[in-house]
């Protein structure tokens, strides 16, 4: 027999871990559906506010006792509003019969008291109410100004909307800055890293526990060194994660460069924009035009690096914890200390996004346990100085080395230890004892 070197053993373990995981239905479904879900999370609210502001045809009758405002309100959307002389009692019946969606009663003293009532069958959503309210409000404001003797030109001036466009200064000149959009990108990437670290970390610990609980580990340990077994598993499962991430990156690249222009074009359609502006007039909640900013390939590269380094850092710790327990239900208590530093940065993301260049943000993002999420957020949200990026890379690699060293020592002892449920103190004892 031709004895093989140990590098080929770790390769065997990596391939085994990779192939068994990649072939599962769960992985294939998650890989394909993941981006769709994410797209849904990002775009559905936009599309809904955009298209669904008040897209359903509604007929609203207006009973105008002021005999002034009704006409202007009808003019704001003739397809929706019409003036009527019927009494509210008749209109009520019409609504109940379904011939009418509702009716608005404007009392005589409306301009003074500013109160009117709309009667509907209920429902209709916030979009409907907002539109109606802003239509009426606009007309009323114009009328009040006119009554106060303000010149028409002044009224026009008042109605001009205000819109601040952010401009980013670069060496090439100025370009449109999408600070808000980049903040969203940062948040999304940070959140993906968070999810993947937890998900793949728990795959590692579950895999280790499975081998220990089913007593497979004894046979494997008689074939390869514990370090090879642990790292083979960590790398193999990491490769599964990388496959998934690469698939997503390529897919989102395709989406961004092919489909986004179409979407963007749709959103900046002038007609839609107009209705949008009318819907929102006073409290501008949406930018007047929606364009998808281009995401630099560097952000994707950073994403892959911070995902991988974060995964490896935590996966080795998850492996160590997995090796220490006999069954999965015992693992939770020991996993808690590992999960906390994964969760904390998610709570800090909001702060870091709004102050990406503050000292606190810099320090937090350089703390290795937080780096994967917080540095990712910063890289996406703001131009991070090169030295900070290099520092984060060096610190990540150094901590990874440290974690592997510690985890390997725990793993070596843990996989053969059955019976008692160890606590954190025991794990540190194992680290010191392992020779």
């Amino acid at each position: 027999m031709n004895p093989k070197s140990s590098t080929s053993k770790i390769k065997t373990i990596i391939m085994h871990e990779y192939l068994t995981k990649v072939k599962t239905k769960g992985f294939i479904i998650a890989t394909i559906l993941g981006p769709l879900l994410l797209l849904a999370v990002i775009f559905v609210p936009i599309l809904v506010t955009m298209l669904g502001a008040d897209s359903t045809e509604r007929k609203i009758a207006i009973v105008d006792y002021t005999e002034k405002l009704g006409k202007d309100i009808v003019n704001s959307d003739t397809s929706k509003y019409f003036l009527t002389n019927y009494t509210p009692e008749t209109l009520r019946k019409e609504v109940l019969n379904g011939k009418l969606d509702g009716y608005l009663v404007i009392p005589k003293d409306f301009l003074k008291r500013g109160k009117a009532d709309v009667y509907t069958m209920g429902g209709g959503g916030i979009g409907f109410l907002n539109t109606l309210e802003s239509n009426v409000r606009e007309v009323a404001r114009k009328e009040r100004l006119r009554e106060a003797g303000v010149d028409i030109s002044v009224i026009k001036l008042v109605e001009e909307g205000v819109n601040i466009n952010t401009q980013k200064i670069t060496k090439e000149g100025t370009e449109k800055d999408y600070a808000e959009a980049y903040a969203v990108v940062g948040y999304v990437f940070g959140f993906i890293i968070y999810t993947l670290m937890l998900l793949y970390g728990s795959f590692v610990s579950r895999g280790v526990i499975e081998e220990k609980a089913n007593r497979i580990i004894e046979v494997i340990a008689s074939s390869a060194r514990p370090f090879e077994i642990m790292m083979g598993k960590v790398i193999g499962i990491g490769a599964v994660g990388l496959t998934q991430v690469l698939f997503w990156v390529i897919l989102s690249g395709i989406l961004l460069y092919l489909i986004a222009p179409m979407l963007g074009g749709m959103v900046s359609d002038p007609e839609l924009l107009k209705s949008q502006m009318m819907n929102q007039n006073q409290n501008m909640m949406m930018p007047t035009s929606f364009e998808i900013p281009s995401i630099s390939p560097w952000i994707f590269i950073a994403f892959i690096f911070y995902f991988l380094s974060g995964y490896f850092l935590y996966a080795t710790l998850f492996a160590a914890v997995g090796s220490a327990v006999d069954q999965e239900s015992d693992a939770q208590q020991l996993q808690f200390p590992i999960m906390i530093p994964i969760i904390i940065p998610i709570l800090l993301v909001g702060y870091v996004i709004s102050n990406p260049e503050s000292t606190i943000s810099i320090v937090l993002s350089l703390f290795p346990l937080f780096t994967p999420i917080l540095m990712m957020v910063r890289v996406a949200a703001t131009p991070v100085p090169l030295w900070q990026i290099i520092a984060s890379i060096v610190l990540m690699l150094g901590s990874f080395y440290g974690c592997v060293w510690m985890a390997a020592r725990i793993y070596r002892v843990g996989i053969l230890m059955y019976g008692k449920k160890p606590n954190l103190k025991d794990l540190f004892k194992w680290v010191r004892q392992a020779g």
Partner: protein
Amino acid sequence: MDILKVNSIVKRFGDFEAVSKVSFSVGQGTVFGLLGPNGAGKTTTIRMMTNILKPDEGEVSLFGEKVGSLQQNRIGYLPEERGLYKKIKVIDQLIYFGQLKGMTRSDSQLEARKWLKKLDAETWETKKIQELSKGMQQKVQFITTILHNPDLLILDEPFSGFDPINTEIIKKIISDLKTEGKTIILSTHIMEQVEQLCDSICLIDKGKMILSGMVREIKKNYGRDTIIMEWDGDDSFLNEFSNIKYINRSNNRAEFRITDGLKPMELLNKASQKNNIYKFELAEPSLNEIFIDVVTKQGVDNES
């Protein structure tokens, strides 16, 4: 030629010394029994032979070299507590374990198919382990141990979980492997199997070696102090002797050891006065008896 040499190995876990100064050697083509009560340190000893654990003191050498990663490929180890991946197909597991022992993928597949066929298990190839019965799983496990054609087999309770028919099949394979010149280390509590299969043994208790040597010599040294007799009639004659230690006793049959200089002939004379004796055999003690004897004595020695 001795292919395995265990040279006064010591293993401590904290303050507890699990194995203390155990030494033995195993010749090529022989079956060696590693015996001892539960918790005696057998598994720890085996783990040091398979390079899972490193001894704190002493050394294990295999095929003339200190045991290490390379030697591992030549060992087939069947642990007492065993298991397989529940959700992976039989053939894929076998290929994986073969590869872990340094085989190429194609060789591993070839050997796996060969053994599955030999054990009448070809139809399980694409089944997942969780779909197999316990006995079938044991067969697959046994194949993982011998798939890579190891020169040294370490089998810890190899027959547990097998029905009598499959036990015979496995025994046959073990003796075939021995004929081929493979060396086998057997660890079991079932002494009849040791008597049937082992050439030499080593008995450890509380981490210490308390008995070792060739099975035949150990039994010979113990002397013929065991009497097996069968008779017709009354068994009350036995009650007249106080220095008898029964192994088992029924109305017409008794197996016992005599102590304190009781003469076998004296006993036979007494018995034949009232009864019709049709079997009287002076035998060597069974290994089972020796095992119990040595281990209990050891316990007494330790306490005094």
